[in-house]
């Protein structure tokens, strides 16, 4: 094996099964890769100190025939929004600096039970509020394709880590695009499952009705393998869907076996491909449509008129729920405590702690959300936003009567430069236009690379959307498309990721 870190989780799994590699070798290779690249990238907020010991246990299990899953012994990076009992969990915020949760998130528990080896916690915008990871309370993460550019956000750490081969797979969370947009910016695959498909228990909440955890990887099949591990009903999350799920891996395998999209009805959402889209993105998107059409897909233009209001509705629902979810950070029971001079009251301590502990973007959204929920404004803001949400759901339901999947660019642009949008929150928010409707509708969405933009050579993401519960459809279509793109280009986009150092 010349470079272990270049292998997909799927290939590593095969090598482990054949005895060609051990989990210790694989884990060590990734730890070394982190060691050499982390200084340039800053993907991680915390690194596991006992990853190798977990890898040894995994090898021992395999040796005694007790492998727990196809991903036994495979390293994984975990977004810092998920609670881990063995690593500091901060959600990218100073207000949780040094906090070690007394319990594992259900997703983390499932990863451990499946034998994966956690490498560390990845950087993110503070409390997942942001689209560039520049709002992390700790440091900025760089895009491996160009370290002057943002890896996207909020899950820039997970996406950068996977793109730069620091980890074969990672876990992200997606409230308005935090898995898919970074995937698009880094040439990786990212999936936001159906709302309720993956447990939110132990996931530090941003907006409870929108948050969803999902996989980040370099191939569609790898994402499917992770999805099968982390998905499924969790009695600790009331919004978790109790019905059983199809195997995403089987769907991906079925898709990868096929070179044809015959019979697949593909809808192009008019409202998500309009103005404000970078020309290279539009070009690659048009080529993708052409490719699909040539391979048998039926392309249908879809009108989803209410998507026009998605960003506005989202930036009311999200701050409203976030303002309440973030109220618990008050210094009384855990996390940072800042005590002002003199004889402060408990309210003084709470205020000082929140003032010092929260960053500007978090404060901006707390204020916005508090206002939107206020008596007299509730109906106009939160109430109206929820109505828009219902209308968008109807738009999608109607669309899916005519087509099997919907497509759009994953993001309007390729990775923007660090600092470029930092002083313009509205421009930053507008960049979420393509991903937000998916969260508002609760449906699954996937971003896969569809080439490099001619003008800047950066990856461009294609977003696939399916009806709720039909996540498997994304994996099947995604795997076929991945194969068709590779045949067309002669490479997978992720294989072209620069060396970083």
């Amino acid at each position, binding site marked *: 094996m010349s470079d272990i870190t270049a292998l997909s989780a799927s290939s590593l799994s095969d090598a482990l099964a054949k005895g060609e590699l051990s989990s210790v070798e694989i884990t060590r290779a990734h730890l070394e890769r982190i060691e050499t690249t982390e200084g340039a990238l800053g993907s991680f907020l915390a690194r596991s100190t006992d990853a190798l010991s977990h890898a040894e246990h995994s090898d021992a299990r395999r040796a005694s025939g007790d492998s727990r899953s196809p991903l036994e012994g495979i390293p994984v990076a975990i977004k810092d929004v998920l609670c881990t009992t063995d690593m500091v969990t901060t959600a990218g915020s100073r207000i949780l600096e040094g906090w070690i949760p007394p319990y594992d998130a259900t997703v983390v528990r499932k990863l451990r039970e499946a034998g994966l080896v956690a490498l560390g916690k990845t950087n993110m915008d503070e409390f997942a509020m942001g689209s560039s990871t520049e709002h992390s309370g700790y440091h900025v993460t760089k895009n491996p394709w160009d370290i002057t550019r943002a890896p996207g956000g909020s899950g820039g750490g997970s996406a950068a880590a996977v793109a730069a081969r620091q980890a074969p797979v990672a876990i992200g969370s997606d409230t308005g695009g935090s898995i898919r947009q970074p995937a698009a910016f880094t040439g990786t695959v990212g999936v936001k499952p159906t709302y309720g498909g993956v447990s939110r228990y132990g996931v530090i909440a941003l907006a409870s009705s929108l948050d969803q955890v999902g996989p980040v990887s370099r191939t569609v099949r790898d994402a499917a393998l992770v999805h099968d591990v982390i998905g499924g009903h969790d009695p600790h*999350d*009331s919004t978790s869907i109790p019905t059983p799920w199809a195997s995403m891996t089987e769907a991906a395998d079925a898709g990868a076996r096929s070179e044809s999209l015959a019979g697949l009805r593909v809808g192009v959402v008019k409202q998500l491909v309009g103005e404000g889209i970078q020309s290279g993105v539009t070009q690659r998107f048009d080529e993708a449509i052409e490719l699909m059409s040539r391979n048998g897909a039926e392309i249908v233009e879809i009108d989803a008129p209410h998507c026009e209001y998605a960003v506005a509705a989202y930036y009311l629902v999200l701050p409203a729920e976030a303002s*309440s979810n973030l*109220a*618990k950070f008050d210094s009384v029971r855990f996390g940072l405590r800042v005590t002002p001079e003199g004889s402060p009251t*408990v309210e003084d301590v*709470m205020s000082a702690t929140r003032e010092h502990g929260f960053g500007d973007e978090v404060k901006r959204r707390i204020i916005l959300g508090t206002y939107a929920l206020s008596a007299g404004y509730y109906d106009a803001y939160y109430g109206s936003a929820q109505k828009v949400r219902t209308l968008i759901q109807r738009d999608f339901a109607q669309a899916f009567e005519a087509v099997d999947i919907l497509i759009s660019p994953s993001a309007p642009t390729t990775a923007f430069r660090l600092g470029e949008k930092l002083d313009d929150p509205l421009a930053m928010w507008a960049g979420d236009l393509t991903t937000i409707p998916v969260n508002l509708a609760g449906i699954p969405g996937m971003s896969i690379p569809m080439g490099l933009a001619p003008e800047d050579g950066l990856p461009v993401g294609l977003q696939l959307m399916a009806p709720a519960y039909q996540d498997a459809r994304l994996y099947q279509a995604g795997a076929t498309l991945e194969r068709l793109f590779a045949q067309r280009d002669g490479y997978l986009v992720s294989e072209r990721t620069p060396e970083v150092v």
Partner: protein
Amino acid sequence: MAKDQLMDLEKALELFEPVLGFEVHVELSTDTKMFSAAPNPAAMDEANVDPNTCITPLCLGLPGSLPVVNEKAVEYSISLGLALGCDIAPVSRFARKNYFYPDLAKNYQISQYDEPIAFEGSVAVEMDDGTLVDVPIERAHMEEDAGKLTHVGGATGRIQGAEYSLVDYNRAGVPLVEIVTKPIEGMEHRAGELGRAYVSTIRDIVRNLGISNARMERGNLRCDANVSLRPRGTVPYGTRTETKNVNSFRSIERAVLYEIRRQAAILDAGGVIIQETRHWHEDTGVTSPGRPKSDADDYRYFPEPDLLPVEASAEWVQRLKDALPESPVHLRRRLRAEWGFSDVDFQAVVNAGLVPEIQATIEAGVEPVAARKWWMGEISRIANDRGAEPASLVTPGAIKDLQALIDAGTLTDKLARGVLQGMIDGEGSPTEIVAARGLEVVSDDGALLAAIDEALAADPDVLDKIREGKMQAAGAIIGAVMKAMKGQADAARVRELIIERAGATA
């Protein structure tokens, strides 16, 4: 604090009409809390559980924790709603009530707001004179309790002036049902009494349903009393105050009357009532202002996104309706009539909580008066001595057996009390104890007469006195005979025999 001016109650009621409203919080005695698997201290017998031992990540509001609705708590809430004559919402919803306070771990309370589980009911309340008053119920909704703060270092034990405060989150997340009445008009002089009787009725209902320990002194049952006054002959309600912290039935009555008198004095002097919460002080019998409560209070309610709506199927509701026990008020009125007890006697039974035991004993075949005497008398006395619940000492069936021995003349009342002691101490059934102790009453007249003659020989004047009509003189002889018989004689029969000996007629 300036002392409140109070108007004489009679005068206050001449000038103003009181309008009342009550909010009663009931802690449910489910095994676990409202939204987590933490043990529920409100279901425990111990009064004091070590602080912060009944907690999960949710009780502490830890990041990432999520609520899950306790189905049993929903079931209890539906039963309570039905017992209050409410409609049960097929779909109700939890909402977040947002405010910062250190005892509220998440800094929001999960409650029900515009979609409560039960609404539009009515509860019959029995007044002291036996008349019934129907109290209209606005709604009953589910919510979670907050933690408990202990303020240390201040003079008053309140947050003002405290050096630091301790927080115990054991109570955080205990399931609550809040029962809200509609405005209650026309109670006049009986306003205070109604408050007491209403809360007492709620206590009886939740105990009867077995859904709460309902001990006011432990905070299982808490009442806020709303009082407003309007000048006689006017329609709009006056400004109300909400008196909190009222934790005994008697205090509710006193607090309501106090507020009527206080508000009347202010209004009569041309002042205005401030809409505020007030605290009741048990020791001084006054209320004092708490925080102003106005439209400025903004809890930013919104539907709880972590929970699905609560669905109560028609079948579920019907099943619970069918299982409802007879309401305590109706049961009591029925039993009082059937048993023929006086109001005072019956109320004593109710207060002692022994209606079920006495009912079961009567159903086993014991006369009501005898059943009451056993449970309210000797059994209660022993229970009191031992710090035990009367019902835990002896069964209604055993009391029936004991009483049967008295009725058959085998035991005197006094002997029977000794046997009861033996029964409680586990010595066996009444018959076994009588046999083992050789307690059977001597009913052989020959043996009794011999003992009487022996006693008369020592005190011959007695017969003359009896012949003169001084019947009480027989007492000394009866005493001597009972002593000779070691108590195992029927004193009434001894008395009859003495009178026969004297040749007198009783």
